[in-house]
């Protein structure tokens, strides 16, 4: 049974839709990410759950209770902000104690509880410091501790890592996931960083232009995108625009792409055939006995990325992106053959 339910939520700002007909069920103890480009409505949805915005229509239920009209300070929903939002006039300990005092916790339990959550985020030694004496990463961990201290029914994280360095982001997202899993706290995580969403979430909600595009596990979102937007927003995809030709191919202006996934469409339907770069093999010779697609081209770009190398291969009207092992050596202008299986080719309207 769903713990948090958003039923047909809509919200407009000055007659411009920010969120339209948003439906979502979140199970207790799961981490769900809202992923999408800027202005897609993910933060607005989060703010409606927090109570900072009121939906124009629809219902938000938490543990069976309609919380749509409950003020934010009565919802017991913790929130971590992008800008940390620590109170500059209070020490780290006082910041954490603030929420406990507002929740009328017994006086002799407040400080021990605050120290417990400080231990949880591994920053016990910062208790008497002020926020301006901490680094960005430390401040965000304190903000997390402060939100967790009140034992919220739901934890909301609004792009919590976007103001941090790439290295700190990776460390901190692991921390967030560790704490969330240990405490089994229902969490909604807003981000525009696909890697962050895929690595941290139990489920991902991909949003675009105020709508949900797809809801699924990170694997489903990546491997089985339901829309062209999801396929191109999550990771990189090579796309071939064309029409369905028979049950097993898509005919574009230049190529005939063999695929096993065209059977859902009628002959002649306008579609996109999409292939992930890692599904493409690159050969310096023409491969034999390959049951799938083989295209000939010239190496246009080479981007070394450590374990792998990303190649841009000019196949005439188009440049195909392919990931090959880092140890493979290619040179600019080299004649190559790209091959991909007919199963690797996703077909979408």
């Amino acid at each position, binding site marked *: 049974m769903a713990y948090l339910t958003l039923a047909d939520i809509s919200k407009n700002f000055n007659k411009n839709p920010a969120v339209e007909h948003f439906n979502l069920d979140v199970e207790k103890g799961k981490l769900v990410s809202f992923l999408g480009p800027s202005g897609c409505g993910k933060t607005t949805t989060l703010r409606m759950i927090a109570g900072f915005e009121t939906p124009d229509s629809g219902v938000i239920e938490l543990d069976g209770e309609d919380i749509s009209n409950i003020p934010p300070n009565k919802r017991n929903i913790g929130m971590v902000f992008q800008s940390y*939002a620590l109170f500059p006039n209070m020490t780290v300990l006082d910041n954490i104690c603030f929420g406990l005092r507002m929740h009328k916790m017994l006086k002799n339990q407040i400080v021990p509880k605050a120290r417990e959550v400080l231990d949880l985020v591994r920053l016990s030694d910062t208790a008497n410091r002020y926020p301006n004496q*901490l680094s960005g990463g430390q401040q965000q961990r304190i903000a997390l501790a402060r939100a967790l201290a009140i034992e919220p029914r739901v934890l909301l994280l609004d792009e919590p890592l976007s103001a941090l360095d790439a290295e700190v982001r990776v460390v901190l997202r692991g921390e967030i996931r560790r704490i969330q899993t240990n405490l089994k706290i229902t969490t909604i995580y807003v981000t525009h960083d696909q890697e962050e969403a895929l690595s941290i979430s139990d489920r991902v909600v991909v949003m675009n232009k105020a709508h949900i595009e797809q809801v699924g596990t990170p694997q489903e979102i990546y491997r089985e995108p339901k829309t062209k937007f999801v396929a191109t927003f999550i990771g990189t995809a090579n796309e071939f625009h064309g029409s369905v030709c028979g049950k097993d191919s898509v005919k574009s202006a230049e190529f005939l792409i063999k695929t096993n996934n065209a059977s859902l469409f009628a002959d002649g339907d306008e579609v996109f055939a999409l292939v992930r770069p890692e599904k493409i093999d690159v050969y310096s010779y023409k491969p034999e006995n390959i049951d799938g697609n083989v295209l000939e081209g010239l190496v246009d770009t080479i981007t070394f990325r450590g374990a792998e190398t990303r190649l841009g291969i000019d196949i005439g009207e188009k440049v195909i992106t392919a990931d090959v092992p880092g140890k493979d050596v290619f040179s600019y202008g080299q004649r190559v053959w790209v091959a991909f299986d007919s199963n690797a080719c996703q077909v979408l309207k």
Partner: protein
Amino acid sequence: MKTPTKGPVFLRFLIVSLFVFYMLLPIVATYLFSLATRWDRSIMPEGYTWEAYQTAFNLSYFRITLKNSLILSIASCLVSFIIIVPTVYLTQINFRKFRPLLDLLMIIPFAIPTVVLALSYVRVYTFQPITRSPFLLIMATVVYTMPFMYRSVSNSVDAVDISVLTEASQSLGGDLWNTLTKVIMPNIYPGILSGMLLVFATVFADFTLAKLITGAHFKTFPMLLVEQTQIDGNVAAALSVISFTLAWGISMVLLWFSSKASKSKKAQPSDKAYIGK
């Protein structure tokens, strides 16, 4: 590397010295005149005496006018604080689109001459017990000094992201009262103090509003001072010095509180220090 815009050292020193001289001359002259035995035949006073101060302290209205001015100034500060701080806060949080209107309204007290403001109050509030009462004077001084308080508070509010702090407080269970008193006000404290300082100094030195609204019913220190200028210049100078010293002393106390409130900022440590902890 030399900064070309700095100019010669002598010129910079001269400009600053002229400014300091211009600002200090009337104050020093008033101090000296309040202590002078006679100062009309020589460049410097012919002798010095405390007589003007003794006369000033012994004036029958000295204590009462000083008390009245203090009451008036403190009351104006408190009323300004009670009206302005929540208004600026709520405008910023809930009614942001009205902020330009509020900014515009706050120019009006500067645009209206004090005499017109005072006479308007006298004409409009003709009913008892408000008419010509100290309460009416407080209402007028609050309006008169409102821009000072508003500007100081709104500048502080702009410097702090109070929307996010408010939401953080609310998400932790804080109601409006706790959010305002425990989170917002401590963070805009310097602005509130400097606003109150300006209100205090302006009201304490105000003559026109008090003279026209309450007159002899509620005599203030500047009214006594003006009265004395027609009787004894030295005593008037002594009263000016007392007024100035009092305002300066209170300013120092408020500034001390202000500096105590704003914690010294230390350099932000690097995140590298804690990666891998």
